[in-house]
């Protein structure tokens, strides 16, 4: 029975444990319930990934109603991949959160915090698995609203403005998405993605060519794309991101940076391939011509700005914008290799950003702040944390034998396969910039001396260090034995592209 319903349980379990957390009321109990829910989701996600690899697309009719009438859950390989990333990061973050949350969030808010974390988690998973364009909007809003709360629940007042700005832009993005879906609905009469894709290729009732060539559908695509760009934080729509990641509680920064943008990218893929796939959006709109330059400029500008940041979390946030740029480049190429590289980078970026933010969280736990000046020499006294930080940093730069290298390599290859020499050179330039900003952090943490008279610092508690190290080792593991991840992302890309082929 569980196998049959796994696809829905993976989303619904955390969704329903969230109110349970509130009923339980106490922070520790809520934490326990949340951890159990997330871990079982992780197990189910692995199970689903295996099945998708074996059997192809999985389907589930919610309420027992056949698709265009009811909502359908439809899990393809790309979805399963992102789902696995999200649940894996969740499974690592939750044990970590116990100590960190106690330090950073007021006691009476703990149960609410875990409830919101679960809702955000469930919303993100819902996006990965849904086959219905409107249901995607609902899931998006669940995760977004929960995110706004998560960001602002800490004690830093700057998180409030960050969350507010995120709320405004996020709502605009979601509304754009809604407009796009509305246009598509008007031209197709359905909300099911596959049904939409089918009708888009049909001839119009008035006999004027296929539906996808109408101006309405083009406008719809434009709205969907811009709305999703906002969620992805693609340059120049990234303004909300740095402060959100910088001032949110550590656990939230780690979780969001590793998952939220990835899921948003999946939404983009859904728009481009699953919904509009057969109409090949890249022909209808100048997407590649705008997306690749925006992405590359974004990667450069963000890397450059990151160098001048004096706050570690802000620095990492800007680097996230740059990394999102890489993924967007891969998608903008509109080739299978590019798409596969993007998906692979998605996995790897989740691991490395997760590592880095968790490691920074360990430091925050002991030091209480993230300004670079205040962290001089801290790494020397926290050897395990700084090991994780260094590994994550190397991966971010893209040093061989780390995860970051493999995906950057794949991306560069995809770029060069289309002879975009300048793009490749610019990607390398932004990698060079990443050496500078990562080097700066490592330099301050490890090489500078603690100011005289500073109180000695201990290593963070075991339950925080252990998850951090697990992810850090993931960086190495996916750098050395990355063939499986690469194979899965290649297959996922192939599947998405094959959907395009008529």
């Amino acid at each position, binding site marked *: 029975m569980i196998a049959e319903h796994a696809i829905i349980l993976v989303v*619904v379990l955390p969704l329903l444990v969230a109110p349970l957390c509130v009923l339980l009321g106490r922070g520790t109990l809520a934490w326990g319930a949340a951890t159990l829910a997330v871990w079982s989701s992780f197990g189910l996600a692995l199970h689903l990934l295996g099945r998708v690899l074996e059997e192809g697309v999985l389907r589930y009719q919610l*309420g027992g109603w056949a698709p265009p009438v009811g909502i359908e859950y439809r899990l393809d390989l790309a979805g399963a991949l992102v789902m696995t990333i999200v649940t894996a990061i969740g499974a690592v973050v939750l044990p970590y959160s116990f100590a960190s949350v106690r330090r950073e969030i007021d006691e009476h808010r703990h149960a609410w915090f875990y409830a919101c974390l679960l809702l955000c988690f469930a919303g993100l998973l819902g996006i990965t698995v849904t086959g219905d364009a409107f249901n995607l909007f609902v899931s998006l809003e669940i995760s977004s609203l929960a995110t706004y709360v998560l960001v602002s*629940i800490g004690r830093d007042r700057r998180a409030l403005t960050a969350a507010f700005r995120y709320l405004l832009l996020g709502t605009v993005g979601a509304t754009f998405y809604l407009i796009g879906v509305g246009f598509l609905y008007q031209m197709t009469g359905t909300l099911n993605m596959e049904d939409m894709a089918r009708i888009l290729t049909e001839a119009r009732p008035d006999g004027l060519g296929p539906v996808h060539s109408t101006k309405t559908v083009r406008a719809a695509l434009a709205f969907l794309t811009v709305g999703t760009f906002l969620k992805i934080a693609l340059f120049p729509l990234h303004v909300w991101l740095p402060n959100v990641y910088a001032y949110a509680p550590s656990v939230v920064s780690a979780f969001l940076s590793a998952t939220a943008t990835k899921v948003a990218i999946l939404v983009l893929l859904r728009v481009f391939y699953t919904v509009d796939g057969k109409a090949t959006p890249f022909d209808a709109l100048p997407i590649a011509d705008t997306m690749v330059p925006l992405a590359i400029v974004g990667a450069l500008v963000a890397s450059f700005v990151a160098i001048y940041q004096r706050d570690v979390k802000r620095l990492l946030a800007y680097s996230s914008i740059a990394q999102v740029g890489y993924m967007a480049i891969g998608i903008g190429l509109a080739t299978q290799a590019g798409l596969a590289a993007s998906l692979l980078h998605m996995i790897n970026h989740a691991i490395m950003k997760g590592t880095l933010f968790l490691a920074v969280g360990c430091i925050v736990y002991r030091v209480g702040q993230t300004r670079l000046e205040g962290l001089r020499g801290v790494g020397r006294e926290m050897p395990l944390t700084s090991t994780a930080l260094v590994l994550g940093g190397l991966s971010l730069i893209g040093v061989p034998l780390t995860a970051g290298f493999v995906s950057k390599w794949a991306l560069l290859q995809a770029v060069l396969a289309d002879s975009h020499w300048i793009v490749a050179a610019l990607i390398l330039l932004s990698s060079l910039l990443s050496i500078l900003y990562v080097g700066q952090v490592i330099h301050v943490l490890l090489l500078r001396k603690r100011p005289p008279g500073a109180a000695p610092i201990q290593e963070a508690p075991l339950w925080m260090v252990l998850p951090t190290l697990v992810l850090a080792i993931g960086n190495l593991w996916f750098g050395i034995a990355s063939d499986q991840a690469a194979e899965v992302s290649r297959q996922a890309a192939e599947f998405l592209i094959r959907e395009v082929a008529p």
Partner: protein
Amino acid sequence: MGVAIDIILLLFLLSIAFAACVTRNLFSAAMLFGIFSLISATLFVVLDAVDVAMTEAAVGTGVSTILILITLASTGYRVSPRPAGRQVLALAVSVVLGATMVYGTLDMPSLGSPDAPVHTHPIAQYYTEVSPVEMGIPNMVTPLLASYRGYDTLGETAVVFTAGIGVLALIGRRRRKDPLPIVEEFREGGANRHRVLRVISKQLIPPILLYACYVQAHGDFGPGGGFQAGVIFASGLMLFMLLFGVEHARRIIRPVVLEKLIALGLLIYGGVGLVNILQGGAFLDYRTLAHDPQHGLHYGILTIELGVGITVAAVITTIIYSFASHLRDHVMQRTLRLRQGADAAQTSPESGA
């Protein structure tokens, strides 16, 4: 005739939107927004969307406007002038947006055209022709909301739940050991000076609550359902709060109870789905609930509507309580500060300068 009403209402909307853009006074902007919602709700009635009209009226004119007003009461109505450069930029972006949309409308089917894909797609017929027979429920929106797209509604309930938790987490009153010192005039709170208003309005509260129950139960046959009922229920409680003060209202339904109710509603909804799975059906397949599938559907829809109603009523009440408490604390602190200042000024005249 419908078209004429439609157009006049749209003209009203346009004038309000322009006024809202131009006005410098936040209070009038908020009031205009209220009217805007009211008119659009009327427009929804003209466009046959009665359920939406009910919700928009309850939410737009009711909840949103009042929340904005409470916020304004504690933040003030002052607005600093906007720099011109920013206005030009905003205008440019809006025009680009509008141009894209106009471009999009060029190929749209005209309003109400029966040839539009929205109406020719088989699912449209399914919802209007098969569904009443299959479900035995005259209001086509209700089964669509609660069963065909019941999962969306679960998500919607989760969103409401999140909002409730979020507001609690942000401005919910801390369970502090030392509560704020209470200024005596505020202890009673509410409109205690207006005796007549109090007496008259008090009589209105039970009908409102009763009416909420009617809307909850009658959703199968007419406009209404859990969400609308929840909002109406909450507005009844809000009336009570306005008349007798938030402290009193908090004693009637304790915030802790509300918090648990928020969770309970969502759990009821999800629980139905899990029971369906245990019964061997798909998630939210109510037909498994009874031997006769139609009965099962009715049970299921009633139960989840109840869940929605509970969560929504609890969340809206919680939100309004939290906002009102926040405002009250704000006013009280201010008064205390001023009093202390006044005392200090009286005792030592030099310090005032």
